[in-house]
């Protein structure tokens, strides 16, 4: 076999990138944030957005569109459409939205993960993009790697076996 030329593209916090086969795409250390992968069965391109907050409309300083579930997913969908992909064929896999800190007192900050999950699902439904697999919620972090060749999403957490979605 020749040299494996495939690279792993890293997506940072509040960041969005596309990836072309045979490269893989990853985001490291999702906590309350959500990693949304959008792909189709046949296209070479896929994309991943690392979403941090539920809604751009709730925030004044919302220029960084990748940060929010609504504008982040909108932009990822249109970037893929620009590559010639059809929205009707797009499918998503999502992971994240954990509640990392358990507070004894009453605070709504802990539920940001839950609000992110809801907002991501709503936005995908708005675009009529089906969620093929998900691992959301709970109280631990996740690193995800998507392989557009096999369409598998690998989910890694500390002290737990890896999962394949």
């Amino acid at each position, binding site marked *: 076999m020749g040299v494996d030329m495939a690279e792993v593209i890293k997506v940072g916090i509040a960041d969005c990138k596309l990836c072309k086969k045979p490269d893989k795409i990853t985001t490291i250390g999702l906590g309350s944030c959500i990693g949304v992968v959008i792909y189709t069965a046949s296209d070479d391109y896929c994309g991943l957005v690392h979403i941090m*907050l539920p809604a751009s409309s709730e925030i004044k*300083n919302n220029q960084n569109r990748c940060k929010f579930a609504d504008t982040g997913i909108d932009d990822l969908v249109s970037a893929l459409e620009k590559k010639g992909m059809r929205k009707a064929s797009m499918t998503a896999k999502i992971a994240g939205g954990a509640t990392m*800190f358990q507070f004894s*007192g009453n605070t709504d900050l802990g539920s940001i993960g839950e609000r992110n999950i809801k907002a991501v699902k709503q936005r995908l439904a708005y675009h009529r993009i089906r969620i093929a697999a998900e691992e959301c919620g709970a109280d*631990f972090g996740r690193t995800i790697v998507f392989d557009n060749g096999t369409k598998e999403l690998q989910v890694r957490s*500390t002290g737990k076996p890896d999962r394949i979605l």
Partner: protein
Amino acid sequence: MNMGNHELSSMKLDILRELGNIGAGNATTALSVMLNSNLRMEAPLVKILDFNAIADLVGGPDTLVAAVLTHFNGAIKGMTLFVLQVEEARNLAGVMLGKTYPHDYMDFDHMDKSALKEVGNILMSSYISSIGTMTNLQLRADPPAICIDMAGSVLSLPISELGKIGDQALVIDSKILDNERPIDGFLMFVTDEESFEHIFEALGIGC
């Protein structure tokens, strides 16, 4: 503190650094009294960092860390975090509880976690109370919570809070020295724009 759009003046940064200095100094004194040890603190570095650079302070987003987080409220609102690499957390819990852990110990039990929570609580409440004293503002700290996981995941909560106002964070990087051996960790102070204005106003500096 809308750091996404305009930068903090160097004078304001100096003030924040000084607040960080005094707060962190008092915090180490409190900690060394509790641990009955010879703790010192290096002058903290106040840094304004991009989100993706914060986790690099402890070795990257997949580094295992222990973090203690406290919300505070009153005249100013926000949160403080005390973040340590997991090896340092193990050492610190060992000093607190008089135990020695195997070097690959990862199953922090309830006692280990409460010991670390207590260290974080002492550091952060004395930090918050110093800021309260200097600004003459009433501040109250909530009970802390602890999380041990990948740095990126652990930091997602404070980073999301900061994300509401910009793309950067003010980090007070404080190195604690235990008999000259550094305990590598940092304190992070997160507050909103309005609260920063209150701090500067209370100190007599117009915005």
